[in-house]
């Protein structure tokens, strides 16, 4: 992917079947944060940007983001980008996505990334951190983080995750937990809560299929894990807390204290067979009780 350009991203139009033509975005093509843009409203007021697309989010001029309506993975990604911007670390950040719905997100981010095989991002991230973070004089320490789904992280990738924790790798693992396999159509994953119906547990998950895995709690038992937390983005308050967790995780990594991990609960309305708004209620009522929010191991 040499010389990748923004124009190339219009190619997603081919994927989504939308003709790339004159749909004009009302947003200015480029702007600076806090820039008034010279635009004045009629009553001599000026506009100041409060919250927009994060700068690292590349514009897809002709298309929406290729996720389902109400999917919160881009929301979780926004929290990550906000933190990167706050820390001024966008230039040193290397993102390692796995395979799942979130695999598409890095293509839209203006960050260096290496896509991994299903479940293996901790392996790649370990190697990248050790190769680039050798204390060479000509570069700052890289900020290496993975972006994984729940299936990627703890089903197919459990071995990689556990052993990265055992080796106390200085990386950050971000797990977007939508409690099922979203990409393949909503099958049971190890994090599916009891009672949650999926296409492979049509009557709802029962203890016969085991119990949901609580990853931050599990990782907190490792001596080599420095930070483990679980957040959600279903309300503005939870969003802000999650953002704080991610920031702490990144700071833990930059301080070289060991592996840091943040799980983010995300909604998946189509595979839960719910409207987006009902899915937020479902998170509040059925998922958070089985996956308590908070920090489980901290600096």
């Amino acid at each position: 992917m040499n010389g990748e350009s923004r124009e190339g991203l219009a190619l997603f139009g081919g994927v989504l079947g939308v003709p790339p033509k004159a749909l004009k975005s009302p947003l200015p093509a480029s702007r600076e944060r806090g820039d008034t843009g010279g635009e004045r409203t009629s009553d001599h007021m000026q506009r100041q940007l409060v919250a927009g697309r994060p700068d690292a989010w590349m514009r897809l001029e002709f298309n929406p983001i290729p996720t389902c309506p109400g999917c919160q993975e881009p929301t979780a990604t926004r929290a990550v980008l906000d933190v990167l911007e706050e820390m001024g670390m966008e230039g040193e950040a290397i993102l390692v996505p796995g395979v799942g719905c979130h695999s598409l997100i890095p293509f839209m981010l203006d960050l260096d990334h290496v896509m991994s095989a299903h479940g293996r991002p901790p392996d790649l991230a370990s190697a990248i951190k050790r190769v680039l973070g050798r204390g060479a004089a000509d570069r700052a320490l890289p900020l290496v983080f993975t972006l994984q789904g729940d299936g990627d992280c703890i089903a197919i990738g459990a071995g990689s995750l556990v052993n990265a924790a055992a080796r106390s790798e200085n990386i950050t693992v971000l797990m977007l937990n939508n409690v099922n396999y979203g990409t393949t159509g909503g099958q049971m994953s190890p994090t599916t809560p009891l009672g949650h119906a999926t296409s492979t547990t049509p009557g709802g998950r029962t203890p016969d299929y085991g119990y949901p895995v609580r990853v931050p709690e599990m990782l907190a038992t490792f001596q080599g894990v420095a930070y483990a937390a679980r957040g959600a983005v279903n309300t503005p308050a939870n969003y802000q807390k999650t953002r704080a967790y991610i920031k702490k995780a990144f700071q833990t990594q930059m301080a070289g204290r060991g592996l840091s991990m943040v799980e983010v609960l995300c909604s998946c309305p189509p595979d839960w067979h719910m409207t987006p708004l009902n899915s937020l209620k479902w998170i509040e009522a059925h998922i958070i009780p089985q996956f308590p929010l908070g920090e489980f191991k901290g600096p």
Partner: protein
Amino acid sequence: MTDIGVKKELVAGRPDLWLRMENNPIPSCPGCHEPTAMRAILEALEELDAVGDAVMVVGVGCSFAFQSMVDLDYLVCAHGRPPDGASAVKRVLKGDHVVFTIQGDGDCIAIGAGALINAAARAEKITIFMLNNANYGTTGGQLAPTTPLGHVTSTTPGGRTPAHGYPVRVPELLATFQGVAYTARGAMNSPANYQKTKGYIKKAFAAQRVSLGLSFVEMLCACPPNWHMTPLDSLKWLEQTVIPQFPLGEFKDVQGASGKTQEATR
């Protein structure tokens, strides 16, 4: 030399389940504790009268050799995959079977971490025995995830430091899973520890029999050749260096398991 009227009674010999290999010793190194651990498991099976129902699933490592030495039905899986094989055996057989795996530490938590974690997540009614000798014995003593800090291996010639990470404590790790009924860690270095470990093994089997969930027992074993020690020194090393980093005891025993254990034992 027995007097008339006095009968010789065997107190301890080879377990009945140990297949006699008349002309050969057991193919493990002098001082290796893995056959001791196997003896504890076999005795526990006999005491629980579970021999006929037992299926052993073996991984790859020094414990690989048990397949030819133990008079039990067995299945050998790929490196690290015995929890997968055992899960299927338990679910397919459906009856009152006692399905257990024998794995080394590398097999169990390095290459097989994914299989182990997901068997725990599925709350499989199987028992997993991890024989922890703190290194990769079969391939010549390399670093394992369970190598204690300071321990010299052939891939950490200066001793394990935090740069290589910290040793994984598997029973403590598994205890966080809702689907895990019983976890414990025993050692083979003294008669007292042997007896305690056998108790843990029996509880683990009992938890499986009453379908409480996955049960797990780690057994600390000496590996004199790869530790570059005499067998006796290796016992001291186990006592002084390994056990302080791997505390012995039970880490999870879901409510009622102990009570039901007695019942199942009877």
